[in-house]
């Protein structure tokens, strides 16, 4: 795993009453380049220990003097977004992991159809900058709650004109996906229900899965606390209610490879050997879940879980 980067919050503004944009500038030298759709993990010092949340980079990938992220305040969460909204001030320094990309645009697509819901607009801000520079054909379908989750709407209206399709309620996805030229690709970022709906309509209309891309907006959710038994080292750990299993392992000094911290990339796959598991990932098949778990999101469902670590 690459070393963390130290960045300074050089600007902050509220985009909507619940979305705060932070500009992160390098403290020493330049920041690594990134591709559209990339995210960074922001390391957050919370009471439960270190928490890392993944946020898409919304800035133009052509400019790496700074990164920008947009954070939606989540009430029912573990406090990461609250910290970035309420605690962090301009001038503060933050630790972030270097950019990684699990949601890159398809290089040879003829037409890019972007579908965003709410804070799901964030990866597409970088997409749009890159696609405009490439003079690629694209359109944005943006679903939001007016005045609440409509970040960047004014900017997008001016910038995209008729290429922006704005919706205050779920659009007719079948219509969006029908009769598209060969080589079209669709990208969706938003809640799982929207992703599922797009996939359903795409499948119905004969879209190849290779043309359908998505990124779910979910990180680790809290749950019941449970104990952890590491069979190889003999260690016994506690996973608190607000802590993910991965964070508990990291807190104990274990290095587990990870990228997305949202149960999609597969990096943190770990073999489990006892105890009831609540699987919350979108990576493993049910058959694989019998043997493995993704500690970034999945949790124990009983008093104790044993892991092959």
């Amino acid at each position, binding site marked *: 795993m690459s070393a963390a980067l130290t960045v300074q919050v050089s600007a902050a503004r509220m985009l909507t009453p619940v979305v705060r944009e932070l500009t992160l500038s390098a403290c020493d030298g330049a920041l690594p380049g990134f591709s559209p759709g990339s995210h960074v993990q922001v390391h957050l010092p919370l009471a439960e220990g270190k928490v890392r949340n993944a946020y898409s980079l919304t800035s133009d990938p052509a400019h790496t003097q700074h990164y920008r992220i947009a954070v939606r305040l989540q009430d029912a969460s573990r406090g990461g977004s609250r910290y970035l909204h309420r605690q962090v001030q301009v001038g503060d320094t933050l630790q972030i992991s270097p950019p990684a990309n699990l949601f890159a645009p398809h290089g040879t697509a*003829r037409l890019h159809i972007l579908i965003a819901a709410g804070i799901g607009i964030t990866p597409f801000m970088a997409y749009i900058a890159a696609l405009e520079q490439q003079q690629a054909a694209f359109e944005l379908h943006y679903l939001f709650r007016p005045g609440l989750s409509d970040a960047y709407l004014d900017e997008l209206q001016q910038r995209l004109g008729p290429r922006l399709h704005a919706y205050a309620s779920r659009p007719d996805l*079948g*219509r969006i*996906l*029908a*009769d*598209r*030229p*060969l*080589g*079209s690709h669709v990208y969706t970022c938003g809640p799982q229900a929207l992703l599922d709906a797009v996939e359903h309509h795409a499948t119905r*209309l*004969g*879209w*190849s*899965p*290779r*043309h359908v891309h998505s990124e779910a907006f979910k990180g680790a959710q809290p749950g019941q606390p449970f104990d952890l038994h590491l069979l190889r080292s003999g260690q016994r750990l506690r996973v608190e209610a607000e802590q993910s299993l991965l964070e508990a392992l990291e807190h104990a000094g274990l290095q587990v490879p990870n990228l997305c911290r949202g149960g999609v990339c597969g990096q943190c796959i770990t073999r489990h050997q006892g105890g009831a598991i609540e699987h919350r990932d979108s990576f493993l098949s049910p058959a694989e879940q019998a043997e493995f778990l993704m500690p970034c999101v999945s949790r124990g469902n009983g008093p104790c879980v044993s892991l092959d670590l």
Partner: protein
Amino acid sequence: MTPTLSRPIVVMQSATACPPVIAELDQPLLLNGDQPDFARRLQQALASATVGCRLYLLGDEAFAWRIHAEARAAGLEDDEISMTCTTSGLRQVYCAHCGLTQAAGPHAVLNCIGCHVGLEVRTHFSRRLGAYLGVCINPDQPYAGFQP
């Protein structure tokens, strides 16, 4: 509006009897390589096709892979193209020395029509080029078999 599924496109090298897989398709658009304006028809069919369209190719390897490349350039993915190489006929060979892709018979050796180097046709196959790799069979006498 009820979106309609895109019609499947069937491209045959020559007008032969339809195999069962084609007969089961719903209103396929049939094209065959014998038609005088085949190239234009194919281009038009691909340009007006929409996402969800499936392409079925029937012919020898050289023909099927040539159309495959055209379809990929038009935006179809591998998994949207079904190929049935029915007739034993020509295949494409890529010369590693001059870069020319040429149609060739089933023989294991040939002279490149571009640079005249004697080639051995390897089993290495490029899906992108739709061709087998041809490599100089005798580096000591690369033009040994060439008779102008």
